[in-house]
């Protein structure tokens, strides 16, 4: 690992001042992504600003809303009784992520800022427009079984890795960002950027800004919401396909569902077409659900090895919706 300068920030103001004062500075919280990518040379900040002791770790969740500080640890948020009870899709997405050790380290803000696990991004020996803009994309014609079928461009097809972000996009969550000019709110679904011809720009975070809080209002169906994650092994793995389903089904009829997919898109993929098709369907009617699921993942453009994700995603959607609607 190359040498790097290090300083600590006791609060958000100090972190933002330090980010403004240093060129090529990067925030360090749980370290689970930053330390890994620093070690293998994928990122090369000159200064690390350690915010792991910044006390933005509060968690509030109940019937009305959910809020977590940007520095709250994944494990603490997942285990919070209000999150488990009223926003189970968040608890499930968190506990199906990584391992117990990593969840004890990683923060909510860090989770949302994590970089892709595209194997070509990880390996400085390959072309990657995200790591080295203009160098090309080794994934498009490479081994792309794990890559995106939606939201890609000729420059990048890397999937977004966060399970939490998929659950939060389904809940219409909002980020509170703080920067030199003060605080601002941004919808999480507007935060992430499609790669286009600038895949190195992944989100709307401006220079010297940081995530200080994440919040969501209760949605009908949130207390029964479900996160279904399909992996290539039973645990401790990134999603091949995942579905966050927030389903309100009074009398068994689906009303205003909220659906987001992970593992298929270059950003967490909210699927309004699927929501529309599911509306009015009887949740227990598997055939009708299966037929409605054909509307999901519209516009998918599979690569050589990942065409199976479209069918897998639609099947996962049916199961996730039934679990969220209480159909067993």
């Amino acid at each position, binding site marked *: *690992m*190359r*040498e*790097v*300068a*290090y300083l*600590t920030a006791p609060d958000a103001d100090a972190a933002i001042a330090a980010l403004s004062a240093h060129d090529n500075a990067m925030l*360090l919280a749980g*370290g*689970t992504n930053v*330390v*890994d990518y*620093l*070690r*293998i040379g994928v990122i090369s900040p000159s200064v*690390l600003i*350690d915010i*792991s002791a910044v006390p933005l770790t509060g968690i509030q969740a109940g019937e009305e809303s959910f809020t977590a500080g940007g520095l709250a640890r994944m*494990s603490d948020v997942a285990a919070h009784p209000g999150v488990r009870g009223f926003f189970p899709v968040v608890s499930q997405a968190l506990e199906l992520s*990584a*391992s*117990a*050790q*990593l969840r*004890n*380290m990683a923060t909510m803000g860090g989770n949302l800022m994590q970089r892709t696990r595209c194997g070509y991004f990880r390996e400085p020996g390959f072309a990657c427009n995200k790591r080295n803009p203009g160098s090309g994309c080794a994934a498009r014609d490479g081994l792309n079984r794990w890559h995106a079928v939606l939201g890609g461009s000729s420059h990048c097809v890397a999937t977004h890795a966060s399970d939490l972000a998929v659950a939060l996009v389904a809940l219409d969550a909002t980020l509170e960002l703080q920067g030199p000019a003060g605080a601002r709110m941004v919808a999480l679904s507007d935060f992430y950027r499609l790669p286009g011809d600038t895949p190195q720009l992944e989100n709307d975070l401006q220079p010297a800004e940081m995530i200080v809080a994440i919040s969501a209002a209760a949605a009908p169906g949130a207390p029964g919401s479900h996160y279904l994650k399909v992996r290539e092994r*039973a*645990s*401790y793995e990134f999603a091949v396909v995942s579905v966050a389903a927030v389903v309100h089904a009074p009398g068994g009829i689906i009303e205003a569902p909220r659906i987001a997919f992970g593992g298929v898109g270059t950003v967490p993929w909210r699927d309004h077409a699927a929501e529309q098709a599911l509306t009015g369907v009887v949740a227990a009617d598997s055939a009708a659900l299966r037929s409605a699921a054909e509307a999901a993942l519209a516009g998918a453009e599979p690569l050589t090895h990942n065409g199976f994700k479209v069918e897998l995603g639609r099947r996962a959607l049916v199961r996730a919706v039934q679990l969220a609607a209480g159909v067993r």
Partner: protein
Amino acid sequence: MHHRVKVVVNGVPRELTVEARASLLDVLRERLRLTGTKKGCNQGACGACTVHVGGRRVLACLTLAVQCQGKEVVTIEGLADMGETLHPMQAAFVAADGFQCGYCTPGQIMSAVALLTEGHGGSDAEIREWMSGNLCRCGAYNGILAAIKTVRDAAGHPDRGR
């Protein structure tokens, strides 16, 4: 640039000078010669370097030593504080054949002890899920599961009968 770090390792206060890039894992092994904590993948994928920091199980390979300022670190060497007497989890791993080559074992044991403290020692499926961050390439998983259940079911453990 070097940084002074005060940290308590296995109950012993230490004051160390470290570079920011030094991982807790490397400092434990190379500086303090606590080589019980193993370096497996060095990228957060195997769990061999699991230690307790501030009472929680974490990966020492993805923790910078400089981030442990003022914290308590416990490694496999500090688990049994009774001289030659093993910690009950260590004894259970021996009795249940919870290892073969032994390389992942310190991490497995540190994770297993934390798992019971966290209250995740209920069903076999729950134990397997909450131990999934510790890989064993010899495949000693059945013995590891049996060892954890032995300790869980021993008299006085809060998870008994869950």
